């Protein structure tokens, strides 16, 4: 069981959250020319590192806010949680 610190609600158990995937992926800017390569990078390609991973989570059974977690993908240690607007 992961214990996750929601930046809004504090420590809660994993059951209250849903995972949202890699948070380093950037959507190509709207209204700009988007190449197939940019779109490919955004939709399909993932680094999927072993080690530190910055990812989105959703406190779906709580405050319903999205936020970011930096977590180790092999030990599951959670280093830090941030609001979506915050950078590391």
């Amino acid at each position, binding site marked *: 069981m992961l214990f996750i610190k929601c930046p809004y609600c504090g420590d809660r158990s994993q059951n209250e959250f849903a995972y949202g995937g*890699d948070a380093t992926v950037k959507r190509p800017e709207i209204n700009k020319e988007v190449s197939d390569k940019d779109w490919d990078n955004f939709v399909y390609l993932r680094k999927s590192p072993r080690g530190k991973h910055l*990812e989105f989570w959703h406190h779906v059974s709580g405050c319903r806010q999205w936020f970011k977690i930096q977590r180790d993908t092999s030990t599951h240690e959670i280093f830090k949680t941030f609001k979506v607007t915050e950078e590391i």
Partner: protein
Amino acid sequence: MQKYSLFSLIKNAFRNHKDWEVAWKNPKPKKEYDVVIIGGGGHGLATAYYLAKEHKIKNIAIIEKGWIGGGNVGRNTTIIRSNYMYDANARFNEFAMNLWRNMSQELNFNVMFSPRGIINLAHSDVQMNAFSRRGNSMRLNGIDAVLLDREEVKKLIPMADFSENVRFPIFGGLMQPSAGTARHDAVVWGYARQADSMGVDIIQHCEVNGFDIVNGKIKGIRTSKGNIKTKKVGLCVAGSTSILAEKLNMTLPIETHLLQACVSEPIKPILNYVVTFGAGHFYSSQSDKGEMVMGGDLDGYNSYAQRGNLPTLQHVLTEGLALFPFLSKLKMLRTWGGIMDMSMDGSPIIDKTHIEGLYLNCGWCYGGFKSTPASGWTFAYTIAKDAVHELNANLSLNRFSTGYLLDEKGLGTKTWIG
């Protein structure tokens, strides 16, 4: 190679079983190979076997960081099926089915292939319609499919919950009678023994940690036991693919996620089929030892941990109890996990890459055991001929950027949610 037979068993019994040959040797890596396969799971071993057998390549090494069979091939729940709707997936996995049927004879090793049939349960009219469509597609591809109504399902699995007031009543199901299970370790050992007998070097406890690439061509690999020269490298590392891709400066359409499974204490035979619950993600079969083998959802977040977390297991077993209430009386014997190379459309990749001499075999998600022989066969073809075969032509790496996805389940890119 010593042939396994009743005769050799009796002969060796008289010598107290002291004269059996080792099934495969434990060689030191040579300086150079014609082909190096990275990963001694089912797919790597099958690839080496077909390279030697079908393409007569002599100088092959398999490099395995742990021991052969210690990865997903030794952790899976052994379901073998070809109940796919898309032509590319159906034909590929039906090709595998044909190889499974003869595998014990071909490898002279009992892989205990047991075509006991799989039943996918439906819990609504809509699901029955979808299953009848899938069944028809399968039959068009020459794969056996039978649509069962509630009463027919009840005859086959009377121990399921057929009471009236359940949340997800069983409406019927789609059955592939020729699907089944096999002994996973035996598949590993069978391929390893045959590959070894044809001169393949199986090198265990040797981790690949880098590549030598000059002018876009593979020249060799770097391992924990030194550098090895080779012009052809086949990557068969399943859940570790992204780690090696990073060393190749490649970013792939896959993410590594964790899948758990568990078995109960052994009980007398009760379940004769592989059964999947259709209102969630739970499936079960009974092993030859009598254990109820059970599995379901991924843990749901990127993981290389090879061990799972309790909430998912609880969730999966809750579904299990909804389907088979008798499970509540059983004790859990073991739980474990493996790391899955989840592709973005749920289908695998067997292809060449932009690096000359580097070939990619990955994206097996939680269903790569059934494909083992077809994966090895087509990957060997692709490596030997530097070309894709008709069977893996659609399992291409560029299908994501070109839009020719094989999104069998229509889950979108987040296959780890489904």
